[in-house]
């Protein structure tokens, strides 16, 4: 079974530029999460999708961050414009369904963003 795929693996941009990250979840997984992991901190949920609908985006900085999952499969997270404090690893995770035991939750390897 293929895992959660993310690209690119690394990205370096200058502040005020835009950037996009891509996530391909495990086949058949309806629930998709984007977490932000700043150096020295634990991952923080940015947005959760159930199929192509947003379940929770309460911690997404909507003035600069956007995310979509148009066909309920792949997802894209965008930052425009980027700030220095956006430097972090962006983790994508997927699960067949959303439930608190997270029995079948899997994480991708992440995209490491450096904003200079």
């Amino acid at each position, binding site marked *: 079974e293929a895992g959660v795929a993310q690209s690119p693996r690394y990205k370096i941009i200058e502040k005020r530029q835009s950037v996009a990250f891509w996530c391909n979840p495990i086949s058949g997984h309806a629930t998709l999460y984007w977490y932000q992991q700043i150096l020295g901190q634990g991952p923080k949920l940015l947005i*959760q999708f159930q199929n192509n609908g947003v*379940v929770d985006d309460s911690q997404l900085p909507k003035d600069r961050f956007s995310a979509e999952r148009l066909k309920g499969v792949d997802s894209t997270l965008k930052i425009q414009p980027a700030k220095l404090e956006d430097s972090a690893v962006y983790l994508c995770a997927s699960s067949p369904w959303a439930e608190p035991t*997270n029995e079948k939750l899997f994480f991708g*390897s*992440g995209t490491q963003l450096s904003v200079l």
Partner: protein
Amino acid sequence: AQSVTQLDSQVPVFEEAPVELRCNYSSSVSVYLFWYVQYPNQGLQLLLKYLSGSTLVKGINGFEAEFNKSQTSFHLRKPSVHISDTAEYFCAVSLLSSNTGKLIFGQGTTLQVKP
């Protein structure tokens, strides 16, 4: 609101020595508890979790954790560590009543195993 505190940011230990990574949580509602490991340049991998039942939970790679409700703790232990255990370890909680699966993570503990 829920929060997770990992009491040590770094834990250096010699190979074959025992180790304990400490985790405390705060929540007004019941939670499930998790430990994840992150090896360099990799995603998070589940080590173990406590859902209910026995408070001593065994996970992969020889790790175990004990849930202590009165102290709201979920400390991770291993009796003898290997060089390959060098990694970042995260404690996390999710809400029993939640239908979202959202995880709230601690700040992480870097385990450095020395030869």
